[in-house]
């Protein structure tokens, strides 16, 4: 029996994942824009099939010298499972705190609350958006704090995945006129990629 199953995505499939992410991140950004009463600058989502140990490279929107905080949240639905990571540049919290009328005050516990609130909104909306387009209903697990005020390498070092390859979608949100920068990463497991590719093929053929 062949033990090494080669997972891959074609250029058409990659393009399709990118467009699906584009629509989903727009829906998520709209919610964030309404919550904070700001304009969210939308990037072009980056879709890559990578080794889990190359995760650091997928987080291109954040410098390693920056102090960051992050949460992760597992999700599963119709045979597709994965994990969402939301990582904030720590300088973001003062502005988020002002925008949410906490008067710019930040301490670790308030920061954690803000982080969880924004994570719930962005991750939930993004997964809903992806799910709607692929006809999958995702259930989300509890968000888990990865770390606060650490550098990026240390933050993701704490993760220990059982999968080796992952389909990674990176969305870097910035907010116009504010020092808010966060990276939303959707990681689909190796086993999910085959199921996802089938769904995407259906959309491509349609």
């Amino acid at each position: 029996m062949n033990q090494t199953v080669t997972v891959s995505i074609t250029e058409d499939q990659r393009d399709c994942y990118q467009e699906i992410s584009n629509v989903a991140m727009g829906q998520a950004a709209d919610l964030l824009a309404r919550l904070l009463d700001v304009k969210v600058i939308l990037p072009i989502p980056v879709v890559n099939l990578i080794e889990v140990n190359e995760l650091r490279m997928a987080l291109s929107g954040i410098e390693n010298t920056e102090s960051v905080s992050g949460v992760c949240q597992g999700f599963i639905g119709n045979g597709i499972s994965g994990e969402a990571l939301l990582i904030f540049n720590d300088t973001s919290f003062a502005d988020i705190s002002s925008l949410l009328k906490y008067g710019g005050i930040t301490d670790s516990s308030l920061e954690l609350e803000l982080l969880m609130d924004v994570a719930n909104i962005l991750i939930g909306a993004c997964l809903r958006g992806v799910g709607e387009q692929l006809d999958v209903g995702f259930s989300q697990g509890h968000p888990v704090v990865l770390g606060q005020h650490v550098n990026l390498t240390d933050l993701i070092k704490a993760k220990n995945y059982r999968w080796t390859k992952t389909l990674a979608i990176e969305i870097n949100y910035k907010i116009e006129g504010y020092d808010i920068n966060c990276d939303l990463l959707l990681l689909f497991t190796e086993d999910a990629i085959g199921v996802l590719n089938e769904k995407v093929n259906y959309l491509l053929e349609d």
Partner: protein
Amino acid sequence: MAIPVLICDDSSFARKQMARSLPEGWDVELSFACNGEEAIQAIKDGKGEILFLDLTMPVLDGFGTLAQIRKEDLNTMVIVVSGDIQPEAHAEVMGLGALDFIKKPASKDKIKEVLTRFGIL
């Protein structure tokens, strides 16, 4: 006579999706562009009497394309089709002269409704 219709989006999947969502039996001559610069050229070549325009694109994005169309006073009717559904983005493209704004993924019914409303169909 067939109307020259241009679909501008950086994603080939989105371009196809848009093309097959156009009303059936609508007599069009369809062209495609991958970014705003290509779209501007296609309009100048007479291929874009009606332009379906995405916003988030490399090279020249949808906002820049609308600004360029206005600056050069190009003859085209622009319908923005975008995943950026923030009210600000909507207001900005309308201010830049777009006919209307359709959120992605665009449905057949919505496209038909907009085209009918503007007397295009």
